[in-house]
């Protein structure tokens, strides 16, 4: 299974956020998208989720263009965004039951309890979401996104609100996703947590991938320098200019 992004272009008004962007993600890979604010990371995730339509370009999965009007294509994707996608007046377990029902997945108490245990929320499933802290909501959001066992998982700043234990638990879940051969694409500014689990890092700038490096080549210091703009020029840009 390969997820291929081909020549994807997206413009908001006069601002071109993504400019003929190309990217491939292989089965069992966790790709970490990095870039400064406004680099187009969230826009790319929304396009991959089918929530935004690009002006040009296409998304390919299993050598087929993804047709987002087909529910099978949409059900292959799990999404965690800034907003939790949770209903405040329902309890944690009722939220999961709703999503399990709508995805037509097992919705019995045992299955939902298992989903809560995965994110360390078993004691809070009966409480309304409006009583949750930001971190608890984030844990439930992650459980919600994993509920239908998606083959492609898209995560926008997944560490937001998570405490150290939550971040480690999340990393464990992501390693499981990789082992199952799923594709994970994540944006984050929490580099210290992302570094141990990411297979690759793609750096976005001016609507394009300007650097795409395998994890083994990288150090935390390099990632921080890149994001802080302390590097003179990323390696890929230097290559392009040289060519």
């Amino acid at each position, binding site marked *: 299974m390969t997820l291929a992004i081909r020549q994807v272009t997206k413009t908001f008004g006069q601002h071109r956020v993504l400019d003929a962007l190309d990217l491939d993600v292989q089965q069992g890979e966790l790709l970490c998208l990095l870039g400064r604010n406004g680099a187009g990371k969230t826009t790319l995730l929304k396009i991959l*989720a089918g*929530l935004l339509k690009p002006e040009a370009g296409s998304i390919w999965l299993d050598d087929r263009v993804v047709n987002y009007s087909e529910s099978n294509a949409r059900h292959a994707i799990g999404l965690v965004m800034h*907003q939790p996608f949770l209903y405040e007046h329902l309890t944690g377990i009722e939220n999961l039951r709703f999503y399990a029902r709508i995805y037509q997945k097992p919705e019995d108490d045992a299955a939902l309890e298992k989903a809560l245990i995965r994110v360390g929320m078993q004691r809070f499933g009966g409480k309304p979401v409006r009583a949750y802290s930001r971190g608890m909501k984030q844990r439930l959001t992650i459980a919600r996104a994993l509920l239908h066992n998606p083959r492609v998982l898209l995560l926008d700043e997944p560490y937001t609100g998570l405490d150290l234990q939550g971040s480690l638990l999340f990393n464990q879940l992501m390693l499981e996703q990789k082992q199952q051969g799923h594709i994970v694409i994540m944006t984050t500014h929490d580099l210290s947590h992302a570094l141990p689990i990411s297979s690759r890092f793609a750096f976005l700038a001016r609507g394009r991938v300007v650097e795409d490096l395998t994890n083994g080549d990288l150090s935390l210091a390099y990632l921080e320098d890149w994001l802080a703009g302390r590097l003179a020029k990323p390696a890929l840009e230097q290559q392009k200019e040289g060519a």
Partner: protein
Amino acid sequence: MKDWLHSVRTLVWKDLLQEWRSKDMLTAMFAFAILTLFIFNYAMELSPINRAEIAAGIIWVVVVFAGTLGLNRSFTAEQDQGCFDALVMAVPDVSAIYFGKMLTNWLVMLFVSVLIVPIYSLLYNQSLFNAGFLLVLVLGAWCYSAAGTLIAGMTVQTRMRDLLLPILLFPILMPVNMAVVKSASGILTAAPFEDVQAWLVLLAAYGIIVTTVSIMVFEYVIRE
């Protein structure tokens, strides 16, 4: 089709459960309806004959204005937490979201109607418990929910949604308002069925057409 119906049922279950817990829509709609009934009661001194003629108009005005409050809330609850995106990704067809919301809005409007009809009867000393009149309310509420849910789906994505919804909705509802008031007045004043029949057919036709068209276009309305 089975998956679509399953999604609709699940959405209605979720919306009603959420409304039961929060009572956001019901409280606002019911309070507004009661206040409006009291204002009409004090503003108009009606003879028993006039009451029968004007009851339909008063009840429908109260239902429509209270319903607008509910329509505004029905989509903002999804929008606030970003749940709309999650629904779009989860349902087999986006039209299921429209149909589920439409059914919920319809049920909530009927519930408010069931509460205000006896209160009207007490205030104006006039019984409205007439099967024909209640049928008109059911049909009118369906037409209102069918058009209102579509327009609310459009306006919820705008900054001026509270203003835009009534401005866009009320002109579209003109045939419904006329048909409900004329047919309900006819029923309450014991007019011949032939006088009322055409208005009932108009209501049924409006409901079927607007619901069908809305199911077809809802995806284009809510997509970017």
